[in-house]
C-alpha cells in the first residue's frame, strides 16, 4: 500500500468568525434578493414591454407618467438597490475566481465598488428629484396630466 504524502504546509484555517460570517451573509443575500428580483423584474417587464403598446409606448411621457406616482418610485428604487447589490456581489465572486494577480484583483474590485455606488446614487437621485412636467419643455412630449398645471 502506498503511503499518503506528508502535508508540509497545510493551509491556514479560515477564521469563521469574520470571513465566514461575511460569506454566509453574502450567500443568504444572493438568494433572498434573487427571489425578490424575479417578482420585481417580471412585473417591470410585463408593464413596460408586454402590456399596452410594448416597446413602442416607451418615451418621456410614459416614464414620467409612471414616476409621478410614489408607488413606482419606490418600486423602481427597491429594484435598483437589490439588482445593483445582487449583481455587484455576483461580479465580486467572478473577480475573486479569475483575477489572480493582486494588482488586477485590486483594480477590478475598486472599479466594481465605484461603479456600484455611482449607479445607485445616480439612479436614486433621478427617481426622487425627477420632474414629470419640466418648465419650458415641448408640451406634446409631456404626460397629459401636465396640462392641468399650466
Amino acid at each position, binding site marked *: 500500500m502506498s503511503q499518503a504524502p506528508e502535508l508540509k504546509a497545510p493551509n491556514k484555517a479560515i477564521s469563521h468568525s469574520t470571513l465566514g460570517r461575511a460569506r454566509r451573509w453574502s450567500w443568504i443575500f444572493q438568494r433572498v434578493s434573487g427571489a425578490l428580483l424575479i417578482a420585481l423584474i417580471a412585473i417591470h417587464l410585463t408593464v413596460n414591454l408586454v402590456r399596452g403598446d*410594448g*416597446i413602442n409606448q416607451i418615451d418621456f411621457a410614459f416614464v414620467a407618467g409612471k414616476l409621478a406616482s410614489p408607488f413606482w418610485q419606490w418600486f423602481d428604487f427597491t429594484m435598483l438597490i437589490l439588482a445593483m447589490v445582487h449583481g455587484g456581489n*455576483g461580479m465580486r465572486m*467572478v473577480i475573486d475566481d479569475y483575477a489572480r494577480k493582486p494588482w488586477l484583483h485590486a483594480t477590478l474590485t475598486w472599479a466594481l465598488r465605484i461603479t456600484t455606488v455611482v449607479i445607485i446614487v445616480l439612479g436614486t437621485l*433621478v427617481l426622487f428629484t*425627477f420632474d414629470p412636467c419640466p418648465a419650458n419643455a415641448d408640451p406634446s412630449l409631456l404626460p397629459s396630466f401636465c396640462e392641468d398645471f399650466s
Partner: protein
Amino acid sequence: MWMWVVHRTTGIAIFFFLIVHVLDTALVRVSPEAYNTVIGHYKTPLYTLIEAGLVAAISLHALNGLRVIAVDKWTWALRRQKMLVWWVWIGFAIIMIGFLPRHFMHAFGGA
C-alpha cells in the same frame, strides 16, 4: 456544470445592461428630447433582437437561480438536480414562446 457557465455569462451580461439601463433612464432628468432620442434606438430592429436576448438571459438566470436555491435547500431537489435542469429549459421555452411573438409584433408589426 453547463448551467454554471450559463448562470455566470447571463449574470455578467445582465449586470452590464443594468448599468447602461440606469444611465439611459437618467436622461429623463436632462430633457424629454434627450430621453426620447436615446430610447428611440431601443425600437430599431437590432435592439429588438438584443432585447429578446436580454429577456432570454434574465429568464434563464431567474429559473436556474430558483433551481440553485431548491438544490441548496432540499435533498429531494439535490437528488433530482439533473432533472431540474430540464425543467429550467422547459420553463424558459414557455416564457420565450409567450414573449417573442408579442414583442416582435410590437416591434415589427406596427401593432
